[in-house]
């Protein structure tokens, strides 16, 4: 369900969320002990794409 403008998080919050999600992802891979570098990096890129799209939606609403 799409959020309206008043529910939309501020860009700073989106960036903070991004940092949290990124660290969660990194921790998950650190504990897996798999050393799956390529897979981890592709997940990081996915997260960047997802967050950038979210940020774009928020800024275009403004």
């Amino acid at each position, binding site marked *: 369900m799409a959020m309206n403008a008043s529910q939309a998080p501020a860009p700073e919050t989106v*960036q903070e969320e*991004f*940092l*949290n999600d*990124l*660290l969660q992802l*990194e*921790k998950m*891979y*650190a*504990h897996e*002990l*798999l*050393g799956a570098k390529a897979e*981890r*990096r592709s997940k*990081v*890129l996915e997260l*960047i*794409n997802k*967050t*950038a799209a979210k*940020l*774009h939606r928020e800024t275009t609403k403004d």
Partner: protein
Amino acid sequence: MKLLKISLHHFRQFYGKHEFTLATDPARNVTLLHAENGVGKTTLLNAVLWAFYGVTTKKFEQREKIINFEALQEGKNLATVEILFEHEGSTYILQRQHYQKSEQNAEARVTAHRIENGNLIAVPAITLTNSVVPPEMAKYFFFDGEHAETFSAETNYKAVGKAIRDMLGCSVAQVAIDDLAYAIKGIEESIGELPGQDDLQRIQREIGEINNRKEDADRQLAGLLELKAHCNAQIQQIDEKLRGVAAAQQLQKRRDEKTQERNNVESKRHNANTTLARWVGTKGILVVARKLAKESLDFIDEQSLRGRIPSPYNEDFVKEILHAEKCICKRDLHPGTDEWRYVAELLKNASKAETLGRVVRARSRINALKDGWNEAVRSLQTTQELIAELNEHHRRLDQEITEIGKQLEDAPIKEVATWERTRQELVRKLSEAEIRMGAIQLAARSYQARIDKLQAEFDRTATRTNKTAALIDKRDLARLALNSLKTLLGKHEDEARKAIVHEVNKILAVTARREYYFRLDDGFEMNLYYQTGKPVPKGSGENQLMSLAFIASLVDFSRKRANKPDGVFIPGTIAPLVLDSPFGQLDARYRVDTARFLPTLAEQLILLVSSSQGDNDVLAALDQYIGAEYVLISENRGPQGQKNNDPITVRGQQFDTSLFNCPRNMTRAERIL
């Protein structure tokens, strides 16, 4: 990480299977192993090192001979070390085997498994061991106290620094930084690959090439730093030797004094140069402004002389005449007449109170600039004179130090002359390294400046189409996160460094006899100094104490932080300390004090001591922390003859640690607690 059990099978002196169950109770976290020299203390330490990393300590005799001789003679060709341990809530079993195929041909195998509901799940052994205790840190955790001089040869600061950061829990944030940097690079490449973005590809290539050169410069700098540390450590050792020889003592003392004086001069010169640099920033403007100020004053004065500044007509006065429509000579001034227009024309150049005020203020400010300039010139002269004086002082001290070196080189004692020649060669290498470092640092700075410029050019050149804008947004998001993480890491490291330095100095204040201070620099290089600022020679008992205090403080820091997870840093490595003869170079008082602080700072402590080190006072200091205790007994096939049984008394019980007329030569362990 907590060690639960160490099992040895045909490993070195240990024929057959031997198990050591280790103390894990936080209140009684010490496992104490008593063994006389040559019985197996160092073997046990090396068993742990070998299982984790496949290496043994440098001084371990016949390092390649892993299998027990008796077993080998009986045709058994497999030696195994198995370690059961807990790490971050999981239990693991690590096994390393040495398979002797023939006399010349051996093979090593290492496996690791996580134990889950009674099942063994294979995990990559090297990744596991590296994450538990980074190999660069192994020698601090698995510490061979009989060879503490290994600390004097410490040169791998970069690797140790990285390992310490890992232990501080920075690894996840560091990997995130690397991943973000990788993503940024990929996004920028994607921008360059978009149609019509040829220029961007060129800029990227250029950035890549300069980055390579910068990385190369960084590598060279790290190498030179290590070379410098190595030379300095050797110079310190030679100086220590010269201080101990009567023929060189006086000269070395003078050199120490002169060197100290030269260091002071260098420090003063550095301050003076900083003042000079600051002068350019703060006072340089006054010099530039001087000409401008002079010209402005001349202009104001010239205009004043001409009667234009201030103007002879006051604005209010002219307005009053026009309003009254009467001149001061009493003639009428009717609006629209030539006379009225002539008077009204005066308003253009008529002065206002505000204009007058501005002129006065401008004159006062210009005069202040002139005064400032005079002061600036005076302070510049003073600083330049001071630098010249310090340069001259430095040159004189250099000469005197060189002269002392020559005298030592000509000393009648051959040894002194040889040491001095080696020292001079090291000083020459140091000086060369410093010159090269200066040049490389300059180059590295220019590379960085060029990269910044190209990066800005990249952003300008990227055509703002929807596609590029979207990619640039992604890159900026990643860059923002990367910078935030870098800042957080810097703060965390700084906090850790301060806490560790504080803790080590606290331990030294209680334990060390003299006044020392411990320093940990930005690269995590550790050094111990006397209060006079002179470094304590590496390899001394104090340095050993420092190393123990350092590692215990590091572990303590990690342990305390593990209870306060902050989202960014993972709980750092909390590894056990396995210390072989940790009191080796310490005297009786240091031993007792060290025995008191070690169990309180480490989560788990395994101490391997001989009777000469583990005397009654040490044992009394440790007693309340001991959770498991073993005695290693040497069994010998041969007859006793004149040999001693090497009895030791532990907990009121006497143990003969050397037995004779036994079935084979081997070591066995007896658990006593």
